[in-house]
């Protein structure tokens, strides 16, 4: 400790969230007894304007050089309080948080025990704070160019938006043609416009835009670097191309699920097809006369109503498992627990198209819940007016498909609304299958270290408030790579991704993480163990000494623990700082 610490402790009631369980005044009184603590008080909401101003003013008034806030989790609120410290003239890294909400008041009901634990947590934080040192966040330059991966509707929209804003865009598509999954569609709901009317102008614009470099038949081989400065290696027609970009938008899209052979007689009986295959027939004009068609919703989605639910979070290693699920033994796998969201409208769209072309056709849609959200309710109504038949089946008794005389199909099911079993003799059965995570998305996530959700879609940084950002700075999600969306929703997300990327590139610089490793050159003997262990290649041994490339180092600290000479330390997570907390976890050892 270089200077005599003057610690201020701010304990938050968080309304009743903390105050309802933890005796906050008691914690404050306790904090006051700790060495070096020159100020301790409580706020109703420390994160409110009043609370933040209080921190700012108290730093000045009491000449604080350490601030501890005992409130909620640092994962959401640390940045806010750091700014308040900065406004008070304190280096934001001289701030420490004690989590007495998520880790205390919310999980312990006994007020006395929770209060004791809160005191311990505060003491640990104060102890750690004594050892904190000011840190600087290095500024990084952001290249004003972007890589958009995927040339479907989302990729196109995102690329054009950025290009229109004046940024250079590299649009990479693995297929020979742009357009993605949407290209296979005939018409779009709810306006029933030809897909080409929407899609083609975007394709043309992207191809001809002076700020966009389109690379079709191109796959991403490798991406190195970090926000502002990604180095991209791609393979275009067997040739390697390379370029540097500041931001990346992942628009790898989704796949349409194909049921395993035999499931709902798919691939076994003629006339059983996926909804998308039916749409392709319509597109090609291969439906030539009125037919009886039955559509079955939720084939491969909403499967297994008792699947355990994990809120967020499989990381990319699970990708391998999910990948084998998609690519591997489809036959034995049952499908996906989620609702794919677009299938109801898609089925209705095709039903309307069929009925409008051949009013004598009979179209029946077998559903579990009809999810025509928002104004799509009108679309549902429109189909009913066209005498499309909507019947419910229940998950436990799925419709059965069998052969019927005269080259027909028989669909048998139980209609709970009537309490009757029913069978329909029909010409075609269309299976509405979900959008599922794409292989490319999963592999790319692995490359970029973007976590996947439990289903294998790319995971957003926060499902509510950061639905476009990923955990990796500078990489954003557009379209169905992050989960099923319809076209309008995909366009919204693509524009939003463009907005988020443009903010970084427009500002030209960004402050980065200060928490990196540093090597004490006097102690280092250049053994090279750190270089061997570092997953980011941030350690380079040269002339018998190791140095850290700060822009690459992500501050994990693996090298710190390994260094035989104890020559490496982790900024903001030094041994002294960690041990200060360890030593004060159960008893007071503040010195």
């Amino acid at each position, binding site marked *: 400790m270089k200077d005599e610490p003057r610690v201020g402790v701010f304990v938050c009631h968080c309304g009743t969230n903390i105050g309802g369980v933890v005796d906050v005044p008691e914690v404050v009184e306790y904090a006051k007894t700790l060495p070096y603590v020159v100020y301790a008080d409580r706020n109703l909401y420390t994160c409110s304007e009043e609370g933040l101003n209080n921190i700012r003013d108290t730093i000045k008034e009491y000449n604080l050089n350490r601030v501890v806030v005992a409130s909620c989790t640092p994962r959401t609120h640390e940045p806010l309080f750091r700014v308040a410290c900065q406004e008070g003239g304190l280096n934001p890294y001289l701030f420490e948080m004690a989590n007495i909400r998520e880790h205390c008041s919310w999980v312990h009901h006994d007020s006395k025990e929770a209060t004791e634990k809160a005191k311990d947590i505060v003491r640990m934080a104060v102890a750690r704070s004594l050892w904190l040192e000011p840190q600087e966040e290095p500024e990084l330059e952001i290249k004003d160019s972007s890589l958009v991966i995927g040339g479907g509707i989302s990729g196109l929209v995102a690329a054009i938006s950025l290009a229109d804003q004046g940024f250079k865009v590299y649009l990479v598509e693995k297929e020979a043609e742009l357009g993605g999954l949407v290209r296979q569609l005939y018409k779009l709901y709810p306006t029933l416009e030809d897909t080409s009317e929407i899609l083609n102008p975007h394709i043309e614009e992207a191809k001809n835009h002076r700020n966009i470099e389109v690379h079709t038949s191109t796959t991403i081989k490798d991406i190195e670097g970090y926000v502002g400065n990604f180095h991209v290696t791609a393979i275009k027609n067997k040739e390697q191309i390379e370029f540097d970009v500041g931001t990346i938008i992942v628009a790898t899209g989704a796949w349409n699920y194909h049921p395993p052979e035999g499931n709902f007689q798919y691939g076994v009986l003629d006339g059983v097809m996926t909804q998308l295959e039916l749409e392709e027939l319509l597109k090609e004009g291969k439906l030539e006369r009125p037919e009886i068609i039955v559509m079955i919703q939720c084939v491969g989605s909403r499967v297994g109503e008792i699947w355990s639910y994990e809120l967020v979070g499989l990381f990319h290693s699970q990708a391998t498992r999910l990948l084998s699920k998609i690519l591997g033994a489809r036959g034995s796998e049952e499908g996906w627990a989620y609702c794919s969201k677009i299938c109801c409208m898609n089925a209705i769209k095709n039903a309307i198209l069929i009925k409008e072309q051949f009013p004598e056709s009979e179209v029946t849609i077998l559903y579990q819940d009809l999810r025509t959200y928002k104004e799509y309710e009108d679309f*549902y*109504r429109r189909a*009913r007016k066209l*005498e499309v038949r909507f019947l419910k089946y229940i998950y436990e008794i799925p419709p059965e498909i069998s052969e019927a005389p005269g080259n027909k199909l028989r669909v048998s099911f139980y209609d709970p609304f009537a309490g009757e079993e029913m*069978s329909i003799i029909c010409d075609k059965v269309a299976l509405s299958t979900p959008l599922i995570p794409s292989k490319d998305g999963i592999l790319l996530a692995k490359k970029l270290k973007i976590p996947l959700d439990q289903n294998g879609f790319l995971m957003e940084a926060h499902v509510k408030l950061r639905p476009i950002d990923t955990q990796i700075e500078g990489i954003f999600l557009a379209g169905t790579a992050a989960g099923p969306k319809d076209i309008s929703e995909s366009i919204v997300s693509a524009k939003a991704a463009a907005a988020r990327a443009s903010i970084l590139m427009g500002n030209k610089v960004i402050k980065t993480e200060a928490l990196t490793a540093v090597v004490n050159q006097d102690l280092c003997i250049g053994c090279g163990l750190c270089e061997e262990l570092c997953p980011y290649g941030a350690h380079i041994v040269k002339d018998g000494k190791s140095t850290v490339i700060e822009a690459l180092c992500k501050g994990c600290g693996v090298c710190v623990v390994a260094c035989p000479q104890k020559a490496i330390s982790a900024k903001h997570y030094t041994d002294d700082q960690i041990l200060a907390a360890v030593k004060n976890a159960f008893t007071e050892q503040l010195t």
Partner: protein
Amino acid sequence: MSKSEDTESRTHDSSHDTKLMHIVAHTPRGKGILDCIQCGRCTSSCPMARQTSRYNPRRLMEMITIGLKEEVLSNTPWYCLSCFTCVDKCPQGADVGEVIFAIRNIAAREGHIPPGIKAQGGNIIDTGKISNPTKSILKQRQEMGLPEIEPSDTEELLKILRKTGFDKIIGHK
């Protein structure tokens, strides 16, 4: 109905007339069938459905949709009180109480008419009224000083009802 009151499940195969929905939708007062989303609001508020499970307006709509013609045209629709509670409550404007009349009209053409209703039809053709006073009532009217009841112009009515085919529907000679 020959079946026990609450029995429901049976296996149908060829007994579905999948055109029934279309027919009902194109019969006067029947277009509501296409508006139904089976929410159950009608049955939830139907006073008759609370008396007996033989009558369930929502289920009746579904039975039309899946084409259980025989059942739909038998005595089921005649349970309806025509109180129009369902019409008022239906969020989709499916007007179940109205669709009932379409089904009854179809049923009547196919000869399913309860005797009481048939008698009403007969009375109209014969007297122009469905309810006629007894002699003692006529006497009482006089006593009370109420005006005499005028007979209806049955000839005129017969012309009308022949034109519409009403006489054939109720089998009037």
